[in-house]
């Protein structure tokens, strides 16, 4: 067990190193980071001076080392636009992104697990078809279109809910539905197929043969085993949600990290972009580490691998 945890931890550290390398490398894609960071009309003198002060004349690996040690201390440099440390800007907006992703995930789980179970238990009934069709539509609908349509319906036509900003639950509702729909669809389908697989197994038949009533068989015996893949996908879905927040936050003017990074890219404010990409990726890696550790308690077979 301890060996497994240690190996898993080491893996995460390696992944984070890789992530930091890519995040650092983004600036070097065109060959010259000074030209990426400076406005296009900067004079040759300015460029040369900027290179000197930023240390762009040093060997690549020296620069990477400096970036890495900075990143470990949460130092990604100053925001070009806001004049504040880039990392502080990201951390200020992190709670908003967590609130939105968390709400979307909660919504997805509350809708998807019951829908998937009902779909599997009442297989090939109207309920199953409706849930399957809705899940399929949900998986095929682009997030940004759904968001715009919800604004059109609930904000413009019906005037029921606000179309932008962060505040109370009314502000949260539309963005959370928008962000959560894809995840809802995916978890519904996963729950359905997982339940169908488990329900056909011998131990379920045994339970039924013993005379256990239908509800406990479904909710206790079957769900426990069908839940294992759902727990894994929750970790992975969090990545989808953090990434998807970029679009959703832009549509609903939600003051989170996603919107911050899109604006930073428009403003060529790369220290902020680097801080945002690194922080979101690191969050995803940490969540998956926690999920994997929890997982070993749920499914002891994993530890033996």
């Amino acid at each position, binding site marked *: 067990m301890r060996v497994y945890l240690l190996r898993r931890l080491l*893996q995460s550290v390696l992944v984070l190193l890789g992530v930091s390398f890519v995040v650092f490398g983004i600036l070097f*894609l065109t060959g010259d980071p000074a030209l990426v960071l400076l406005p296009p009309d900067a004079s040759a003198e300015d460029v040369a001076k900027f290179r000197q002060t930023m240390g762009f004349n040093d060997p690549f690996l020296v620069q990477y080392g400096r970036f890495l040690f900075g990143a470990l201390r949460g130092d990604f440099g100053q925001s070009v636009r806001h004049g504040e440390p880039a990392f502080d800007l990201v951390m200020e907006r992190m709670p908003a992104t967590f609130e939105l992703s968390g709400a979307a995930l909660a919504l997805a789980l509350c809708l998807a697990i019951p829908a998937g179970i009902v779909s599997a238990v009442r297989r090939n009934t109207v309920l199953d078809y409706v849930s399957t069709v809705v899940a399929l539509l949900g998986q*095929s609908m682009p997030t940004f*279109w759904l968001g715009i*349509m919800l604004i059109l319906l609930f904000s413009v036509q019906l005037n029921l809910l606000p179309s932008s900003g962060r505040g109370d639950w009314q502000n949260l509702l539309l963005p959370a539905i928008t962000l959560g729909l894809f995840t809802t669809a995916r978890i519904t389908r996963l729950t359905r197929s997982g339940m169908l697989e488990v329900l056909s197994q011998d131990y379920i038949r045994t339970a039924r043969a013993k005379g256990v009533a239908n509800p406990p068989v479904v909710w206790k015996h079957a769900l426990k085993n069908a839940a294992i893949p759902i727990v894994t996908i929750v970790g992975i879905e969090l990545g989808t949600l953090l*990434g998807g927040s970029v*679009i959703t936050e832009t549509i609903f003017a939600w003051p989170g990290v996603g919107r911050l990074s899109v604006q930073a*890219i428009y403003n*060529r404010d790369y220290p902020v972009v680097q801080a945002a990409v690194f922080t979101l*990726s690191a969050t995803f890696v940490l969540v998956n580490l926690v999920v994997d550790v929890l997982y070993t308690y749920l499914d002891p077979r994993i530890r033996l691998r």
Partner: protein
Amino acid sequence: MSRHPSGRALERPGARESKWRALERPGARELNDWITFLGRLARRRTALFGLVVVALVIVTSVAAPLLTPFDPIEQDITQRLKAPGARDAAGRLHPLGTDHLGRDLLARVIYGAQPALLVGFAAVVISGLLGMLAGLTGGYFGGWIDDVLMRLADIQLAFPFILLAIAVIGVLGASLQTIIIVIGVSSWVVYARVVRAAVFSLREREFVQAAQALGSRDGRVVLRHILPNAFTPWLVVATLDMARVIVIESALSFLGLGVQPPTPTWGGMLADGRVYISTAWWLATFPGLAILVTVLGINLFGDGLRDTLDPRLKV
């Protein structure tokens, strides 16, 4: 090098080719397999429906100039923001209305299929080939090569995809090629994983071990014996991934980092539509429907393909 040096004893010059060719499948049987497969696929009505939808979208995009009299980038400022069904001065119908520059929305939706399908197809080819290569190499050789490839996959998956894509495109500048390459290069992981899993189980099968024992080189074993059998899961992933890529292409265009105006893109049209949402509902509605229908068609077809080829595949 062969993994089974003892197999060398069997090698007799000349004899090998003629003797063992009989073991390979004759072409006629492969054709039969294909016909059986197509028959089974056609019986799944949802898959067939998906295929028809996708085919229609492709035909529409290719035959775009024949389907609408309007030029998708021709502006007519006197005709701006006309509702669906309006006619212009010459009496020509705008079935879906016009946008804020007086351009015919139907023409733009039809032409918008071109960049979507192009990016979808090209990016899937790139990521599919990269993933196939990584999956075959990692799965066949195992060991440290596999470890390195899987850690690279973990690193790739750690990034929020859209954010990484827009950061890279922001630096490189948005163009058709950049978008295809960025999406293509960063989407290889799913392919690598399914191919690798298939190779893992194929590696232990008798026909692969027989080929190794007969002294076939690694390259030949992989290409002749493993690749054809690992192709099925790859194809299913490629189909379903095309749907994802089309959504990503639209998302990038929506954020202004896709194929640049005046080329009509579904995402770009949605971005315009969002600005005029309180006055012109049709601007944002129809391009989104086009994405939905295309992606739904691909998903239905992909699901059917998976269920027909390999129902146990979890993708």
